[in-house]
């Protein structure tokens, strides 16, 4: 077989393993791999962390229950995903490849992102056919569901918008997209945004990778809450985050679980964290001020604090230190 045929067969194999997984076809997936103890699946997923699995026995066992179980069936992912920036080195009966897979915009629960994965494969000719011996990928997608985020270039041009962001941008008085570029209406704040974009574009120039984020704060004036947006530089991409609401809610949920708050107590705690006074919170919840006071006292008993500022601190400080 010549190099051109090998190349064609290897590219077809890259697509075939992806198509098999997204069409929930385990036998077709299994057929793409070397069934040996040295087989490897290796990489990073934001939602799950790093993984380095070895051996066909372990990997196939996990894959079968995943593909036939939780895995969603998605023809768009199977057939409309493109392979880009391919490097493919073929040496006799072994080959390796580096490429990017661009999936059609990711918006699954806990998988919010522009859908770009960085892929790596090592192939071996196995029983006369090319098969995958090492499958590696790095995926940065996956944030809390509903995350409102934009992917920007260094000029502020919007490259991708999450469903949560599209919805929130519709009635946002502070943000505007002009000629495809994101701007803040307030000009002082807009200068901060443009500065942050330049900062972000300048990240990731070192030998080891570097990520970071910069807050953009808009003081909305008397009586109105301050808005905070984030410009995030990560893996060479620039993200703009509309707010951290899902994160704060999640933290309150964890705190409620830790301290054993009832549903009513959890709601009241949320209002207090939002800056409501006790009578206002009672009105919002449709309960009497006395009931609210009782709830608050129970919350104090459960958390061991005795005033509202300390309570909010306790509730929002929960988190694992790593």
């Amino acid at each position, binding site marked *: 077989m010549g190099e051109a045929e090998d190349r064609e067969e290897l590219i077809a194999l890259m697509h075939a393993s992806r198509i098999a997984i997204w069409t929930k076809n385990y036998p077709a997936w299994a057929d793409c791999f070397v069934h040996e103890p040295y087989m490897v*699946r290796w990489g990073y997923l934001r939602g799950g962390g790093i993984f380095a699995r070895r051996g066909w026995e372990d990997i196939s066992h996990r894959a079968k229950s*995943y593909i036939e179980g939780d895995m969603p069936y998605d023809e768009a992912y199977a057939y409309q995903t493109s392979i880009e920036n391919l490097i493919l080195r073929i040496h006799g009966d072994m080959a390796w490849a580096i490429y990017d897979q661009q999936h059609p915009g990711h918006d699954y629960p806990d998988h919010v992102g522009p859908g770009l994965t960085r892929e790596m494969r090592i192939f071996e000719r196995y029983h006369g056919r090319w098969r995958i011996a090492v499958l590696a990928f790095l995926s940065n997608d996956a944030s809390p569901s509903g995350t409102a985020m934009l992917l920007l270039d260094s000029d502020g041009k919007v490259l991708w918008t999450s469903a949560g962001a599209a919805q929130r941008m519709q009635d946002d008085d502070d943000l505007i997209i002009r000629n495809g570029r994101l701007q803040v209406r307030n000009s002082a704040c807009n200068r901060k945004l443009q500065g942050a974009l330049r900062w972000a574009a300048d990240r990731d120039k*070192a030998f080891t990778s570097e990520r970071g984020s910069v807050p953009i704060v808009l003081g909305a004036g008397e009586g109105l809450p301050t808005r905070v947006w984030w410009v995030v530089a990560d893996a060479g991409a620039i993200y703009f985050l509309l707010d951290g609401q899902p994160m704060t809610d999640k933290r309150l949920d964890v705190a409620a679980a830790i301290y054993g708050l009832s549903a009513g107590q959890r709601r009241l705690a949320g209002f207090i964290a939002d800056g409501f006074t006790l009578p206002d919170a009672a009105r919002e919840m449709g309960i009497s001020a006395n009931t609210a006071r009782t709830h608050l006292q129970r919350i104090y008993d459960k958390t*061991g604090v005795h005033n509202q500022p300390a309570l909010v601190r306790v509730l929002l400080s929960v988190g694992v230190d790593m």
Partner: protein
Amino acid sequence: MANDPDDEAAILALMHANRIAMWTADFDAWRECFVHADYTTRMGWWRVGGVFVRRGWEELSSRVMRDHPGRRDDYAFETLIQNVTIRIVGDVAWAVYEQVYPGYDLEGHVGPSLIHEMRVFERHGGEWKIALLGFLDGNAGQPGAAMVRLAPDGTVLWISPAATEALSDNDDLVVRGNRLRFRNSRQDAKFRAALAWAASLDDGLMSRHGALPLVVEAGEGLPMTVYWVAVDAGMIFLSIGTGRIGAKRLALAATIYGLSPAQRQVASLIAEGLSLTDIAERMAIAPNTARTHLRRIFDKTGVHTQPALVRILLSAVAPY
């Protein structure tokens, strides 16, 4: 088919040589380890910097000199290579293995020092060279994190310096026969259950991380302690709460809202639950001065109640 022992020995030597060159800051030796081509690749993930994929020798080599963290002979010469798989076919080979560094304690690198490595080698002019270097480094907890790595039965596999310190005056936990236990038997039963949960969490195809809180109530008027059993990168950790996250968030919030040092101190004491009178006393300032500080903080942050202030102070964390 077994690998040629000479090739395998040469490849193993190259794995070490590359790391030794890096940590002795010998860049000439480091360059010698690689294929110098447009397809030479460095890829992976580490907690501090995230995902990286660098393609091409030119880009890769131009970056290496700039931010070398400095010579470390212990990393160079005392690092172990284990669980090695090497496959060699003709003039190409690949390897997957683990490197265990001695006491990994660089700034921003806290953890049991186990790094997952991957290499692709090519033979050029009779010499094996690295064409692709990949690694996954899940270590890098917060500096000062009090973490203990555990086996599913509670055996201590690794302990961070901050955790050693935290355990020395901790009444809840005890290490006996190298196994970590809670003194209180009800707490210990919960801890065992959390370990069992942790051991089975990462059993799917896709990686999964997660954390379960264990709350120890200290009794009337005393703050409770929250421990976390966390699973990450296929490892189980017990994290001992040290209150540092709050401090970090407060510092970030002070930067966001442009608080002066005195305003920042007032804000952080409010977050601790002190009254304005107590704060004035603690800072040795007049109550009116404390009140003025608070008003300025309200002006700068745009909130008007103390609970709302604490909320925005603690929400000051990049949500991604």
